[in-house]
């Protein structure tokens, strides 16, 4: 669906994008994550044709963004991190205007925007002035606007910033619904917990390069291996220590009370094999568990920033 190759963009001496390569599969719900200034918005602006890269190639469904920008615009729906609404227009007039920007007119446009307004829960607000809508409603209107021409790729730049928890949940449900209808969706966000619950794939960008990209399962697996295995032993630990020291996948060993914290780089299968070896060696294993990891942990690990530049979860941000 989306293919980005060697994308570079500089603002003066600042390298916003430094050879970004990225691919999004058809039908995926892709979470685009990165600290402030990592290059998320620059990438999105290039994808949507609002910015030209210095070097690189962006292709959507085989269409080159640089050589055929107007064909590409039919494929993309864009929801920015601001509302971008005309206060002096009614909801239906706003939708009709953007429909006509895509060449949709008359009854066809009306039918299309009525379906979309119903889908985002604004069907009964058609005759309201946009000015009178709440923030959540404005954001949903923006989403409906981005879908007016039935794009195959929906790009959302921090769509839930500034929304209350209830509106976030409602918005998330709408996005989920769109994904189930077969739309490919890219969401950039700081709120990792939100993305991990919603997205099928995640890409982490830092300093203008994509550091990690893959399905949630793959990335969770990586997180998994970065956390220690906690083995609780009943009684003497000597046999266990001997076995662990000799094991090729064991990186570190820390003993704390009756537990041994093991830095184990193996996967789930290798974990079970280690457990079997311990039991086979007559070690009285009382507990064997991998410390739970999360996206935030790997994000902080990968981006390696001393200062906490991302909102680790909504609860952290809101102080709840």
């Amino acid at each position, binding site marked *: 669906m989306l293919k980005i190759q060697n994308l570079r963009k500089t603002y003066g001496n600042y390298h916003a994008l430094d050879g970004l390569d990225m691919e999004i599969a058809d039908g995926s719900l892709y979470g685009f994550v990165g600290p402030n200034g990592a290059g998320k918005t620059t990438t999105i602006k290039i994808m949507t*044709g609002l910015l*030209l890269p210095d070097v690189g190639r962006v292709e959507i469904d085989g269409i080159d963004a640089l050589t055929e920008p*107007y064909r590409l615009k039919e494929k993309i729906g864009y929801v920015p991190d601001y509302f971008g609404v005309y206060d002096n*227009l009614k909801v239906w007039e706003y939708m009709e*205007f953007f429909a*006509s*920007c895509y*060449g949709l007119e008359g009854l066809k446009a009306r039918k299309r925007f009525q379906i979309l307004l119903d889908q985002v829960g604004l069907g009964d607000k058609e005759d309201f002035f946009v000015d009178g809508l709440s923030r959540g409603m404005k954001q949903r209107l923006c989403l409906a606007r981005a879908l007016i021409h039935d794009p195959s790729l929906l790009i959302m730049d921090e769509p839930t910033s500034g929304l209350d928890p209830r509106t976030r949940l409602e918005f998330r449900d709408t996005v989920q619904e769109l994904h189930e209808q077969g739309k490919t969706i890219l969401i950039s966000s700081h709120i990792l917990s939100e993305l991990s619950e919603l997205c099928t794939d995640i890409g982490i960008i830092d300093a203008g390069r994509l550091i990690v990209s893959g399905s949630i399962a793959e990335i969770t697996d990586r997180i998994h291996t970065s956390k220690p295995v906690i083995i609780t032993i009943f009684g003497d630990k000597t046999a266990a220590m001997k076995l662990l020291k000799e094991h090729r996948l064991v990186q570190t060993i820390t003993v704390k009370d009756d537990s041994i914290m093991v830095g184990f780089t193996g996967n789930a299968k290798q974990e079970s094999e280690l457990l079997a070896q311990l039991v086979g060696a007559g070690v009285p294993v009382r507990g064997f568990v991998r410390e739970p990891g999360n996206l935030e942990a790997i994000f902080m690990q990968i981006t390696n920033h001393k200062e906490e530049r991302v909102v680790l979860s909504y609860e952290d941000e809101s102080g709840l």
Partner: protein
Amino acid sequence: MRMNPVYKREVMVSARSFRLALMLLVFNGILALVALLNMYSTLAQVRLTAEIQYTSFLDLYLFVAALEFVMLIFFMPAITAGSISGERERQTLDLMLTTKMKPAEIVLGKMAASLSTMALMIISSFPIIAMVFVYGGVTLRDIALMLLCYMAAALFAGSIGICCSAFFGKTTMSTVVAYGILGLVVLGTFGVNQFAYYMSGVHTDGNLASIGQIASYATSGNCLYLLLLNPTVNFLMTITRLTGREQAIASVTTWFGHHEQTLIASQWVLISILLQLALAAVFLWAAIQAVSMSKNTGKKRR
């Protein structure tokens, strides 16, 4: 044919707004008041002297047309200077640029909407201007020429406003710069001619005095042709020729000294209108480039 979406939206919003109704009321109110007072004074004079001064009605036409021109040239930048920068301030320009709309469609849609507003103001004032037809002296052709002069000036002033609006992110800044450029064109061209005329006078009079001549042959020289850019000069030329009065004003060769009658001077109005239209096209092209160029920089304009 598909109507330009920006034009359609602008016209719809402006037709709904209280501002347009107020502008029409004030504009036509001032024109009507001036026209009626003029007519009242002419009729009062008739009662006293039993003599009808038909030239007074031409004065009425001259005055109303001049007032309309001044209002038009001052309203137009105010209407257009916020057109593109306003979209930036609302953050809707980027949204439009992500659609299939091209920068040229956005700029031309805005310009057409502003011209429509201006045309509405001019057309709504027709009943007041038509008062002069009661007494005759002004033909439909005269009115058509005056309208052409109005439209050229409106397009010229409007395109300056749109161009500034495309280059500056803030409406306040673009309005100030648009009025600055317009002031430079209207007053600056006079200023340059006055200066050239004065300098020529100092030089020529000094030389003539040395050989015993009395008459002055000072002129502003080729600087006179800078006045071709000035919509007010064009308007004065048009209106004074129509009313058939003040022949001295009607020929630009008599301004700032006695210039030779050239082809340009004899076809002044036509050339000036064409030049204004050409410059308007250049300003609009620059505005389109400015909207397109933001893709290269990605920076918000100040």
